[in-house]
């Protein structure tokens, strides 16, 4: 099994290092032809506007959508989660999305960089809280249909959601040494 990591922009190296530590083969994906070689896809954190534009310019939107609809597991962290959602709130007017998960993402939902934070989050299916980091993070609103929240903050705001073989986290497991969410994804 080869895990693809979307490498248009952002923290793709961190995901790669985590998977390498776990002994999982991975491949950077920049073009549609790279996509054909992978069995799963991680979309990293970064700037969702930048990654979205490059997805459109290099004709990756439909090939990724088709692979995921045909069963390829996908996981988006932060910007990647925004790109998976069916609706983007507080984004640019024409911001592209893969429109795969039945959830709305609100960009920069906590404020500016000064409001970025670290916290322990309880994630359904994990034995103990997950210490992680939120950087200019989105929140995931109104999961519906097959999509359900798997982690919320104490005030109820959703920060991780799952819809079958699709996973979205508004935080960054790749910036920690804790590989439990990567393992969770590899088992989807």
């Amino acid at each position, binding site marked *: 099994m080869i895990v693809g990591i979307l490498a248009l922009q952002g923290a793709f190296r961190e995901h790669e290092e985590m998977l390498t530590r776990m002994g999982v083969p991975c491949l950077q994906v920049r073009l549609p032809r790279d996509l054909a070689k992978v069995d799963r896809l991680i979309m990293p954190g970064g700037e969702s506007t930048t990654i979205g534009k490059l997805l459109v310019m290099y004709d990756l939107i439909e090939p990724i959508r088709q692979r995921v609809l045909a069963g390829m597991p996908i996981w988006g962290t932060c910007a990647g989660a925004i790109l998976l959602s069916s609706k983007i709130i507080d984004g640019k007017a024409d911001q592209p999305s893969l429109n795969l998960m039945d959830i709305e993402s609100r960009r920069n939902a906590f404020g500016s960089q000064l409001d970025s*934070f670290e916290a322990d989050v309880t994630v359904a299916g994990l034995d103990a809280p997950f210490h992680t980091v939120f950087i200019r993070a989105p929140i995931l609103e109104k999961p519906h249909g097959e999509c359900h929240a798997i982690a919320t903050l104490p005030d109820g705001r959703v920060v991780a959601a799952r819809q079958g073989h699709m996973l979205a986290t508004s935080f960054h497991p790749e910036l920690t040494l804790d590989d439990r969410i990567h393992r969770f994804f590899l088992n989807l």
Partner: protein
Amino acid sequence: MAIEKSTWTTKAGLAQMLKGGVIMDVIDVEQAKIAEDAGAVAVMALERVPADIRKQGGVARMSDPDLIVRIKESVTIPVMAKARIGHFVEAQILESLGIDYIDESEVLTPADNEFHIDKHRYKIPFVNGCKNLGEALRRITEGAAMLRTKGEAGTGDVAVAVFHARTVLGEIRRLQSMSEDELYSAAKNLQAPYELVKQVAQAGRLPVVNFAAGGIATPADAALMMQIGVDGVFVGSGIFKSGNPSVRAKAIVQATTHYQDAHIIAEVSKNIGEAMVGINISSLPQEQLLANRGW
């Protein structure tokens, strides 16, 4: 649940999210929107781009907070702004504006000829310039959460950017080949803390993200810096002093992503208009070099 804001991980982490991207200098709301539309990962809000600072001379200071706030309100991507080296009150002002990053920049006229800002005291993260590894590690010790090699801003000549990036990366490679006892001497020569030197020797890279800056004017320049081994690029005068800023900005963004693919770089380099005229750095007198500011 304990929530901790403005930790080292959140500060250095934002820079990690900018990797593989282009940060563009903008002087007004219109340029900021063009930059965001072109795919910039962040904008640097300032009154004058380095090429104009160079031309007009005089003292270059922090930009008008009103301009910075208007730019911040006009885009959804992170906004950075520059404070003078050592001007910790300009830094306090910029932090109060709620922007995302401060650049303690040699492009502005230094306010302190001995001390840089003590960046650990701030909630907001800082990016600093460096010409070599010693300077890079001293800035990290002071609290910089991101670095950029300085290059020579406002020239459109990439030679100094190449020199500084090669210097930093070459010095890291030399550290990796050293024995433990040699590292003590290396730390002394670098004028940097031993623990940090040891950490860099073991990891084979800086503990923070390092972009290239100063003189990048074409898609090929951006890809050159990426292939040399930096994490992303700052483009100052190179975009909005060119013939067609929007097209050039998009081309530089694509070349930064596909920096290893010559076919794509060739494609995006076609018909993008005039590059900024530029100044050959070897024609500049020593006292006009901005990179020598900072200690």
